[in-house]
């Protein structure tokens, strides 16, 4: 919700309703967009009408109270808004409207297995005819319900650029008639990797939510990413990367509640109460990693990340962690993924294995590429602190604080900075 733009002082009960609207937004947004896309065959109409329905809720609910079934209320309002818009645009003839997007009710091979409008919405948003960055932005907007500023922050990109990406993607979907469908069985494997990349990014946005007014962890986003990844695994049980991504998400999700303190501050891995980790999730994640190891096939990116997290979650204590194993897995990962973020994370493991000095040398080589990334500065600050270089550490904490958007992380970084002598 765009609460920032709306006035300052509001009565207490209004604040409660706003919180409830935010909750409903997280729960219902994708369902409403998906239902309207199916009904009107146009993502743009669906998105706009859904946004208007929520704006309407913000306007009316504080005074009139919440309706008994908020999702149904919002869907009804959104459908009315969409019909209004189509009437306004009646210069478009019916044939053209019909041609905007095709929706095939009976693709027999898959519609039996999964009857989920949101999954259709994902495959449309992740269509290979769209550029990867457009797929990600579109999925986060349409499926995740994130605002353009939130997406821009998650990807270190200007808001205007994200807005254009989404607009162009919607225009292309309409013009090229990219369908609102699940892919055919033959096309499914190639369509899946694009979807996984997008789901992982959605998960990350949930896990490290950005925005000063948002919860530090948006569980509905992580839960949604896990739910959708599970559905895809049900479709493709033999795909290693699908299993890898699910394991990765489960092993991260398992540590969620131990990761933020009661006062809303980030707790780093070394200080987490490992007894508070979710044992069933860890056991499920480990099971998936073992299954992939047993396959004997070369692991992909997600399987390696899952294996790294399996090492972390196997240790009873930070000191028991098999850091050489972690570094070895990052070395394998770096061969598949030359991203500076992989190199940064490898350096963090190197710090545990070989000490802060070599890690600091390694990460400072990444400065050009990561200068706009808060985690680079946070990592550098921590290494400088460990090496007793307080003044430089303080400056690095300041830089990290300028860039960090997660409230728990901000609280942690502030305390760390203020503890410096």
């Amino acid at each position, binding site marked *: 919700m765009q609460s920032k733009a709306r006035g300052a002082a509001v009565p207490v009960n209004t604040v409660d309703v706003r919180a409830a609207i935010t909750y409903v937004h997280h729960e219902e947004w994708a369902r409403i967009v998906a239902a309207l896309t199916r009904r009107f065959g146009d993502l743009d109409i669906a998105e706009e009408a859904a946004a208007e329905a929520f704006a309407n809720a913000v306007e009316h609910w504080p005074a009139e109270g919440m309706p008994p079934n908020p999702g149904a209320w919002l869907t009804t309002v959104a459908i009315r808004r969409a019909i209004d818009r189509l009437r306004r645009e009646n210069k478009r003839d019916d044939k053209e409207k019909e*041609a905007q*997007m*095709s929706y*095939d009710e009976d693709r027999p091979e898959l519609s039996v297995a999964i009857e989920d409008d949101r999954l259709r919405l994902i495959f449309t948003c992740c*269509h*290979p*005819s769209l550029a990867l960055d457009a797929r990600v932005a579109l999925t986060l907007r349409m499926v995740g319900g994130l605002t353009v500023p939130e997406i821009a922050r998650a990807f270190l990109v200007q808001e205007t650029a994200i807005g254009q990406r989404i607009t162009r993607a919607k225009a292309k979907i309409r*013009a*090229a*008639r*990219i*369908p609102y*469908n699940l*892919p*055919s069985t*033959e*096309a499914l494997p190639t369509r899946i990797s694009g979807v996984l990349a997008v789901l992982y990014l959605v998960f990350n946005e949930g896990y490290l939510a950005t925005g000063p007014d948002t919860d530090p962890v948006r569980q509905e986003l992580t839960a949604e990413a896990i739910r959708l990844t599970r559905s895809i695994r049900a479709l493709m049980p033999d795909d290693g990367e699908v299993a890898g991504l699910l394991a990765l998400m489960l092993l991260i999700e398992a540590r969620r509640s131990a990761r933020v303190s009661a006062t809303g501050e980030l707790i780093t891995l070394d200080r987490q109460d490992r007894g508070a980790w979710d044992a069933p999730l860890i056991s499920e994640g480990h099971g998936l990693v073992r299954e992939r190891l047993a396959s004997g096939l070369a692991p992909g990116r997600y399987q390696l990340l899952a294996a790294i997290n399996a090492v972390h979650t196997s240790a009873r204590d930070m000191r028991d962690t098999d850091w050489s194993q972690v570094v070895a897995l990052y070395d394998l990962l770096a061969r598949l993924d030359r991203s500076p973020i992989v190199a940064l994370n490898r350096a963090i493991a190197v710090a545990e294995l070989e000490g802060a000095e070599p890690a600091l040398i390694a990460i400072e080589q990444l400065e050009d590429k990561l200068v706009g990334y808060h985690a680079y500065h946070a990592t550098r600050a921590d290494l400088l602190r460990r090496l007793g270089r307080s003044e430089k550490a303080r400056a690095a904490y300041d830089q990290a604080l300028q860039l960090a958007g997660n409230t728990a992380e901000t609280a942690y970084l502030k305390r760390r900075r203020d503890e410096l002598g």
Partner: protein
Amino acid sequence: MQYLVSVIHDKRELGTEAERAAVSAFNQRLKAKGHWVFAGGLGSPDTATVIDNRGEEAIFTDGPFLESKEYLAGFWVMEAPDMDVMLELAAEASKACNRKLEVRPFL
């Protein structure tokens, strides 16, 4: 819905006998399934002439209008209900003619 499928090529030589046979067989399948609208191979860019009659009189010049390594070697116009069906057809077409393709929708 109709799509233009452009055949992109970067070498001078024409298609081989095997490629022509594969394209011909593919075209028969397009016709049988109702996707066929039109198709044709084009002469090399050297054979192009550029015409401009926007001014006082028509000007004819030796083409092509755009010099580039890759050029349009031929095209299909296909009928498909949506982009997913179109991409399946285009993947088959690319295999048959052994060339890279570009798909664009007609307005």
